[in-house]
């Protein structure tokens, strides 16, 4: 008997329908673990990275970190996992960790713990993205006070610091065997070397076409400038903007003298792309940079030495920004209890902090580890001292209004724009922007 196509169709349809009904197991969408590589495509869509947004993987404790720290965090996390009988996953987010975290956390797909810089705190708190830590005061005493101050915001501790970095002055000892006492000395030695044809650049202080307020901070502070004043409680006060005030104008004049219309020490053609490479290649006498430049400089094999950035002759000491790296606990992570446990107990030990240093090579914030490492490694000791002498970057949300306009002002002044008018108008622009965003 030949079954008519119609009957066949009805039968098949019914079978498929019942399959759907029966196996209607609403499995929770198992999130795919994405590595967040910024694989870009010059697509028509104006997206800056063109990559899929990362989501948490399926483990009891999920940690997000970047490539630099992943190797250090993984063994600590694995040990925590075995000690507590849970699965732990460390996901590497190579680009835009802060933005990706805030979006993922708001959607409930974020990690439980992540690493980041302390100046993210203002933005993270305003987005309700992180939970405060409750580490006891005696445990915190084992960390450098500046690192704890940096990760404390509105009197609450938001991150466990594990490393802090700041700018220091690298010198090519073949050209400048002694540590310069002032920045003017350094520039003099550097310019003599340029004239003698030994190097192409006296001092590499990266700015680029859009300027770099982070690297220019030692110059600003040495000439008496500041970014934000402090309230009585010790927090930065967004209403007290130092840009446009006297100290910043003095700094602007100094930058103009050193810029392209003056002695050409500061140039816009030296930017993040080539500053370290030029010094490592022996083409520059001095370099202002942080511990992240060490691997390249050491690999290139030139003879170098590091000292804290000195101030200008007759001026205040230079205070570069101190940036603290820490572990945060997400506010909407799926495993808050494990997250708090991990940060407060597993990471808060000397072994873990030593492991973090060994893996990420960021000068350690825990005093015991810093002393141990500093005993063998004079470079790290200098960086730790430089960071302790610096000022933490302001973490308040108003700070994000400062970076770009101030950087562009520096770049314009280096290019020959009038220093006083530029700095004053930049100060006005920034205050207007801060007032607008409340």
């Amino acid at each position, binding site marked *: 008997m030949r079954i008519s196509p119609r009957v066949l169709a009805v039968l098949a*349809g019914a079978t498929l329908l019942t399959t759907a*009904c029966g*196996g209607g197991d609403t499995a929770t969408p198992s999130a795919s673990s994405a590595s967040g590589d910024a694989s870009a495509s010059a697509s028509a869509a104006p997206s800056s990275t063109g990559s899929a947004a990362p989501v948490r993987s399926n483990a009891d404790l999920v940690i997000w970190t970047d490539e630099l720290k992943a190797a250090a965090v993984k063994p600590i996390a694995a040990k925590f996992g075995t000690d507590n009988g849970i699965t732990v996953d460390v996901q590497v987010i190579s680009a835009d960790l802060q933005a990706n975290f805030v979006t993922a956390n708001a959607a409930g797909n974020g990690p439980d713990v992540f690493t980041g810089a302390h100046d993210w705190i203002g933005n993270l708190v305003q987005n309700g993205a992180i939970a*405060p830590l409750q580490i006891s005061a005696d445990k915190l005493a084992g960390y450098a006070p500046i690192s704890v101050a940096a990760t404390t915001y509105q009197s609450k501790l938001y991150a466990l610091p594990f490393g802090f970095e700041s700018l220091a002055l690298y010198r090519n000892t073949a050209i400048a065997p002694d540590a310069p006492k002032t920045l003017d000395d350094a520039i003099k030695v550097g310019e003599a070397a340029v004239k003698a044809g030994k190097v192409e650049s006296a001092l590499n202080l990266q700015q680029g076409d859009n300027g770099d307020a982070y690297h220019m901070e030692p110059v600003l502070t040495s000439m008496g400038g500041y970014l934000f004043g402090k309230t009585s409680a010790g927090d930065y006060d967004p209403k007290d903007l130092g840009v446009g005030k006297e100290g910043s104008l003095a700094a602007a004049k100094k930058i103009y003298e050193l810029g392209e219309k003056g002695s050409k020490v500061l140039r816009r053609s*030296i930017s993040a792309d080539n500053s370290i490479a030029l010094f490592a290649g022996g083409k520059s006498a001095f370099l202002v940079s942080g511990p992240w430049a060490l691997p390249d400089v050491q690999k290139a094999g030139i003879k170098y030495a590091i000292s804290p950035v000195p101030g200008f002759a007759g001026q205040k000491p230079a205070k570069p920004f101190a940036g603290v790296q820490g572990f945060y606990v997400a506010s909407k992570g799926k495993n808050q209890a494990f997250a708090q446990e991990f940060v407060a107990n597993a990471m808060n030990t000397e072994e873990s902090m030593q492991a973090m240093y060994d893996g990420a090579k960021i000068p350690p914030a825990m005093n015991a580890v810093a002393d141990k490492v500093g005993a063998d490694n004079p470079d790290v000791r200098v960086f730790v001292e430089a960071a302790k002498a610096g000022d933490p970057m302001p973490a308040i949300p108003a700070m994000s209004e400062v970076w770009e306009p101030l950087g562009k002002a520096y770049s314009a002044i280096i290019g020959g724009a009038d220093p006083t008018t530029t700095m004053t108008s930049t100060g006005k622009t920034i205050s207007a922007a801060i007032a607008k965003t409340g």
Partner: protein
Amino acid sequence: MVATTTPTRPASTGPEPAPTPVRRSGTTTALIAKVIGLGLVLGLAIAITPTLVGQGRWAFLAIVWVIAALALLTYAGKRALPAKYILPGTLLLALFVIYPVAMTAKASTTNFGDGTRQSQQETVVQIIASSVVQTPDAPRYTMTVATEGSVTDGPFTLFLVSQADQSVFKGTPEGLETISPRDVTLTNNAVTAAPGYTILTPQQVNAANAKINDIAVPTERGAIRPLGIRQAFEGTTTLKYDEATDTITDTQNGTEYKPVKSGDREYYTSADGKRLSDQSWLANVGFDNFQRALTDSTIRQDFIKIFIWTVVFATMSVATTFLLGLGLASTLNDPRMKGQRLYRSLLLLPYAVPGFISLLVWSGFFNKDFGLINSLTGLDIGWFTSTFWARTAVVLTNLWMGFPYMFIVCTGALQAIPSDLKEAAAIDGASGFTQFRKITFPLLLVTVAPLLVATFAFNFNNYNAIALLTEGAPFAPDNPAAGGTDILISYTMRLAFGAGGAQLGFASAISVLLFVLTGVIAAIQFRATRALEDVN
């Protein structure tokens, strides 16, 4: 009178001839495919329904069923033939174009951004929860969570061992009770067993975290709260929220914080202007974002300049790449040319390099002191410090990146033009250039015109080309927001995401405006190209 003759049937002489089978080859396969396809759609709809109902997503449920019903109606029946072809395309258009545009338009009426990502209720809960302050000099406790009831719902009891003097307590929301260490089993100064109680494993504590964290064992100086899996600390919070009056009160000094509008969002602020927290919440702002985009004085000043440069940039990108691509294609199309394949492969290379990488590498080439271009040519041009040169650099780089595409397209289009037309023109005495101008070019344009329009639209919003190459430089010192090479999209990206955190609601409003703008320009261009259709 017309005689109609009805053909008389011959007397049946034999069996009736069998009806010729209708040749419908492949009907069964097609039918099975259709059934499987429709079955899948229906099955998916049914499988998703319980989840959606469970989460209360009625709109999605309705949409899923509408799509399933449409698919069934269109494909199960014999009629509605045009719909069978149009339906998949229309569905995808709705899903990937109309839906995102609608969501963007919806976001543009809110103040969504950094600081306003949550609802007001979540914000209040967070503000209160994060205001707990550790009581100074209070000991920490080693905590073990236990329950007399279920491990998932409680009620939970905390067994606490003080880390200062090892005294053992039992804590519940009613209060703290000292118990004797002999009543429980202690291992390493932590309670590991208690009669009548089930001790929770770490995983269970983690799973029930929401309920456990709500436990606050009241003490004289505050309350003991759980921290992580096995610790507890004593802390106080002085904030209380009153839902009826929407006020957060600081019980320590009586200050009341009420929502006060500042900009496009509200913050909890006290009567004398002190803000309790920088956290705000998502709110609807109507058309404020559009108003701001259209009437803000800083934006308006820069907008015209940037708009003109965007149009110029897009036009020049299309023109230069098209001319170079066409020129190369015409040259290589000549049958007398040797090594065509080699040249074609070489000329395709710029297109094969990922755009991101080429742009970053080229931005290095343009460095004034250390870049390749200045060192090779001996020039000393500050490429990105002068507006004119920066714009030239952008157009040049875009030319390098874009001409292979035009080259391929023109090659194909040129080969499609029948050569007898050109021969006929040659016989009529037309020179090479006249041939090109009157025959080849118009025919070419018919094919290529839509692609030119598309390329224009693409370059109108070519964010990568500007952002990766110059980041918008150069900037005038008094205007850090609008740079010399900024096009509309990079300018608005900076406005929305640059300083001051992400302002996604504002960015959405600008996206909608740009969408309308680009759409109108493209529509005008398409109408203009309709004239070309008369050529054929």
